[in-house]
């Protein structure tokens, strides 16, 4: 879904749970959209990698979620929210290498524990809103220019 809100473009995607090999479709679409809007390629790269990490998290841990991306001339705001298990200890989760991914996922090469740290590295602001048993909402903000 896509609509205009004032001067900003809003894109919404459903992130299907279960199939982690499909994870990345939403961030891939956003990457293409940003390129077509003429956003500088290094900013496009940061946005797509950060969003990919959040998308993958939603699939691996929360059985899917909803992504809402807002783009205006000043910044890109990516929000991915799910109704998954929530994050018990956010500070611990931000540590490189720490992961709660199940063994099966880790055996396939995912769950290296770099998701949240990477999101922080590539974004200008990262806001995590989470409640155990209820779900998680991650907001990534990247400034244009």
């Amino acid at each position, binding site marked *: 879904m*896509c609509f*205009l809100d004032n*001067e900003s*473009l809003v894109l919404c995607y459903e992130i299907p749970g279960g199939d982690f090999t499909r994870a990345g479709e939403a961030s891939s679409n956003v990457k293409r*959209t940003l*390129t077509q*809007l*003429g956003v500088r390629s290094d900013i496009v790269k940061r946005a797509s990698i950060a969003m990919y990490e959040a998308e993958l998290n939603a699939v691996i841990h929360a059985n899917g979620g909803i992504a809402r991306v807002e783009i205006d*001339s000043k910044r890109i705001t990516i929000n991915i929210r799910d109704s998954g298990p929530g994050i018990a200890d956010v500070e611990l989760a931000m540590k490189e290498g720490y992961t709660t991914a199940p063994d099966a996922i880790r055996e396939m090469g995912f769950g290296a524990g770099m998701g949240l740290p990477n999101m922080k590295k590539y974004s200008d602001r990262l806001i995590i809103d989470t409640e155990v048993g209820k779900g998680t909402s991650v907001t990534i903000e990247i400034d244009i220019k």
Partner: protein
Amino acid sequence: MQNYFHSVTLSEDDCKGCTNCIKRCPTEAIRVRKSKARIIKERCIDCGECIRVCPYHAKKAITDPLDIINKYKYKIALPPPAFYGQFTLNYSRRKILTALKLIGFDEVFEVALGAELVTEATKIFMKKGGYKKPVISSACPAVVRLIQVRFPDLIDNVLRIRSPMEVAAQIAKERAQKLYGFKKEEICTVFITPCAAKVTSIKAPYEKKESSVDGAVSIKDVYLKMIEALKDEKTFENLEHAGTKGIRWAIPGGESSALDIANYIAVDGIHNVIKIFEEIENERLTNVEFVEALACTGGCLGGPLTVQNPYLSRRILKDIMNAADKKISAENISENISIINNMVKKDYDDYLWTGNIEHRPIMKLDDDFRIAIKKMEALEKLYQQLPGLDCGACGAPSCRALAEDIVRGNANETDCIFKLRERVRDLAMQMAELEAKMPPVLDKDSGKNSK
């Protein structure tokens, strides 16, 4: 707007306006307009996929005819290693190179030897370190153009060392000037090309301002003359100088395996190259040192202007490499390598590009961000309304591409035959409604019930 030279062209008489080429183009550079395929110049990378896939042979590569050599006093042939795989198993490399002289060239300089020099220069570059990982080979011009158009983030990864063809051409020319006293304009260096992209790299070079190669004749155009010349069983000249490391460049993985690094990936086929580049852009290949990417499946042996089946070519080339190994003893090989090594160490800087490559921003919808956003919204809305069949009947490769074309002002919604059918149905329904309501004057059927 820059003037883009392309060696890939269309012969309109043969084009049927079918959907084969528009669907295969890796940069969605082709549209069917006025019943003929049209190539969008800014998007075309000269990879030759369309040449390969056109069932009516309407797509062609512009190459030079062999008789351009007649304008020059001293004619040098530059055969790529892929050339050796074009003939049957009966002909040795010596026979093939000799035959090139028999068809009109004065000298033959193996591009494979240029490749060995480039390998040594690359080794020096990799040892120096400080490069952005992974290093992406610049040997395939179509891949370099692909990066300019679709993967601008990887421009800094491209290895800025000159191609074997250019290195060979420059050395051959300088040698001829020194040894025989010819003037530069009297010498021609002609590349016997397996593909369109190499032709473009000569006419519109990016490594430096001007190419050292004077012309490109396609393998197809010399093939019959070569077959005739190969029948001459008596003439033999000792013309082989390149070893197996240079010859192997024609096979995917050949360039990389010569480098003595374990951590490399070799990809062939333009769509496979695109997948790997997407992985690199998303930082999922962080440990790889070197990427060899070739636009054609099978490497240069699979080029669109080759004659032989690429799998048979590979078999033939392996025989030629075995013969090369046997002929030269181990001592000679290491002596040759150290001679080459010293040549390159001395003149390392000569192997570096003096030109540069820039991003070609073809994807931008508009230079004004605000207008681009409005166009983007219109594009998404249009896309939702299109059937999503990617059938190509509208002349665009996909429904999404049509939506983009409409938003750019290059197409109409009714180009989509499904949308057109919907409109026809709506019109038909309106007409049926009109037909059901006759004006009282003509309304004869319900005579009893009318007032």
